């Protein structure tokens, strides 16, 4: 240790003794934290691409708000709720965190929303499907952006039932997200006059799906509901094709991202119905954003990565509007302004924390229909936000029925 570092260490120690006020005297940064899956199955859906989206939003906002610099912290939760929650707590206690964004995993997101409530820090949950985040597990500081299991089920299941797919068999990932998605979808199917023939709960990250698919086939159902995500979704659809099951049953993706379609290829994925909150090729605004995004990452953004950009901007606009990073003031502002950007038109955050915006039911193009790279979807239906996310359930105490 040389003299200079020794002096700095001493200074730091003195500051510590003097207490917090000395540190707070300088205007602290507005700190945005991103806790996400950076190394696992969902890393392509949000991951480092989403970090890029946050940086783009901060740069577009001008890099500072209320005369304070906007900085960003990033951590990998490795899909473990305890890691996500403790990192969030650490940043809240030691790094002056003012807002958290992240998720991709319902279990981790529920754990982090508890911390958000305890530390009073706004938490924008993106990529976690579980609608319980704004129902049983809702908090005054949780905002659920992009999509939830209700919206996914309303989009895909309604469209398929109305197109004649009345009897359903579900291939369900055996954890919170999968079972919530299945129950949301079967409610929609039954409400539209369809019926559930059966379901099989598949352990997460199974190495083989063919056994489960044969059970689905034996059921005689018309629709194969895939209530899973990520690699599980891709591998089950791939096996369904291989075993010729997709010739007799219509596959329904209850959650699929454009990266999944890109992995599978259009030959395998063509004809598939899915629901998305964002598509890069929707309109001039999304194309303009996606072009800039593509230049940085060499990929088109997923709906999550689009949502990270929008959520960051929405938060920063609210901070600017109320002139403070005080969580309660910011939340109040967030819940009464409209969101208009490249991601959402006329979106708003409801009392229970759901960000209501239009959802898109898509059908995957055939290889012949696809004209240029990443030209994967055709819009089947634009679902109005209220229709997609459904009415307030009353399960969240913040939003009585």
């Amino acid at each position, binding site marked *: 240790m040389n003299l200079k570092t020794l002096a700095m260490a001493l200074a730091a120690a003195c500051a510590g003794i003097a207490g917090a006020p000395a540190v707070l005297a300088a205007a602290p940064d507005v700190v945005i934290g991103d806790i996400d899956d950076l*190394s696992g199955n969902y890393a392509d859906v949000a991951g480092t691409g989403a970090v890029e989206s946050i940086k783009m939003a901060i740069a577009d906002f001008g890099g500072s708000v209320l005369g304070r610099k906007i900085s960003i912290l990033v951590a990998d939760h490795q899909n473990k709720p305890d890691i996500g929650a403790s990192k969030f707590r650490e940043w809240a206690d030691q790094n002056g965190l003012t807002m958290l964004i992240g998720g991709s995993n319902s279990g981790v997101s529920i754990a982090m929303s508890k911390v958000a409530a305890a530390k009073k820090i706004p938490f924008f949950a993106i990529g976690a499907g579980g609608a319980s985040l704004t129902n049983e597990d809702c908090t005054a500081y949780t905002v659920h952006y992009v999509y939830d299991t209700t919206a996914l089920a309303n989009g895909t299941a309604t469209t398929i039932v109305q197109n004649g797919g009345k009897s359903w068999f579900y291939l369900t990932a*055996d954890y919170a997200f999968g079972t919530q998605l299945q129950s949301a979808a079967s409610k929609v199917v039954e409400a539209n006059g369809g019926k559930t023939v059966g379901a099989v709960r598949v*352990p997460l990250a199974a190495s*083989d799906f063919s*056994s489960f698919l044969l059970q689905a086939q034996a059921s005689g159902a018309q629709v194969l509901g895939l209530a899973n995500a990520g690699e599980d979704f891709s591998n089950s659809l*791939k096996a369904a094709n291989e075993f010729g099951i997709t010739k007799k049953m219509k596959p329904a993706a209850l959650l699929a991202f454009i990266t999944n379609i890109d992995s599978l290829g259009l030959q395998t994925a063509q004809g598939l119905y899915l629901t998305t909150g964002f598509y890069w090729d929707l309109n001039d605004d999304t194309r303009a954003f996606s072009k800039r995004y593509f230049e940085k990452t060499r990929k088109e953004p997923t709906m999550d990565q689009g949502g990270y950009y929008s959520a960051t901007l929405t938060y920063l606009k609210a901070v600017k509007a109320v002139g403070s990073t005080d969580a309660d003031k910011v939340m109040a502002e967030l819940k009464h302004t409209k969101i208009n950007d490249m991601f959402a038109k006329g979106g708003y955050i409801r009392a229970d924390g759901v960000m209501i915006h239009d959802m898109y039911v898509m059908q995957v193009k055939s290889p012949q229909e696809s004209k240029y790279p990443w030209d994967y979807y055709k819009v089947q239906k634009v679902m109005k936000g209220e229709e997609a996310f459904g009415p307030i359930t009353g399960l969240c105490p913040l939003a009585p029925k």
Partner: protein
Amino acid sequence: MPVTEIFGIPVAVILGQLMLGLVNGSFYALLSLGLAVIFGLMGIVNFAHGAFYALGAFAALLGMKWFGINYWAALLLAPLAVGLFGIVVERLLLRHLYRLDPLYGLLLTFGLALVIEGSLHQLFGASGHSYSVPRQLAGAVNLGFMILPIYRAWVIVVSVLVCFGTWFVIECTRLGSTLRAATENAPLLQAFGVNVPLLVVATYGGGVALAALAGVLSAPVVLVAPLMGNSLVIVVFAVVVIGGMGSILGAIVSGLALGLIEGFTKVIYPEASNIVVFVIMALVLVLRPAGLFGKE
């Protein structure tokens, strides 16, 4: 009257599931064989086996993409390339650990698996890539009780041939007896003028090549992704423990058998299909700690 149901489950369904169980068992057998060879002859618990499996699949994928190498050539070249990589790993890293506690080998290979999977993730993303079934093996046959894709039947054939070929070489040939002698008493064998380090490096390369072969075989079946071997390798370790650590025949037989049992579980109680192997492992450890085919 022909039997149409067993325990209320149609026979056709059971037969279909057993067939698929055999396909999965073939992968287990091939992977656990490599692990058993490496453990039996070197005493190394190769935690990087799943990563080598993924490397095999990526080698086939990239060979196709970058050099136009077709599936048939990849079946030979990818295990060769990954096996060579294994040899480099043995010479540069593992070699230094033989005199130490086996735990160090385990730690090293575990770290290696993280590095390999992390690098693949960094370079090629997490969501995986498609590798198509070779033209000659496309399509499916109707077995009466199920539609079996021809490729899956091919997997069983290759795996059984390779497994019993390896068993034959190790148990019934002069090369095999030399290999086994090296594990019993290396210094003595060296005194007879046999190049033991060469045997060891060839063994590791061979075990790794078997993992890579399983990777190439699985490439057309699942998406080629960095973590594809991650969940598989844990099951395969259990298979090796059940068969008896280091027992070649044990690895092959228990690999196939557990595939069948797992297939059967998927019909009766699907939620348990990912733990049935471990339940059996626990039972085997209690009743026969050395494993079904292990020496007491």
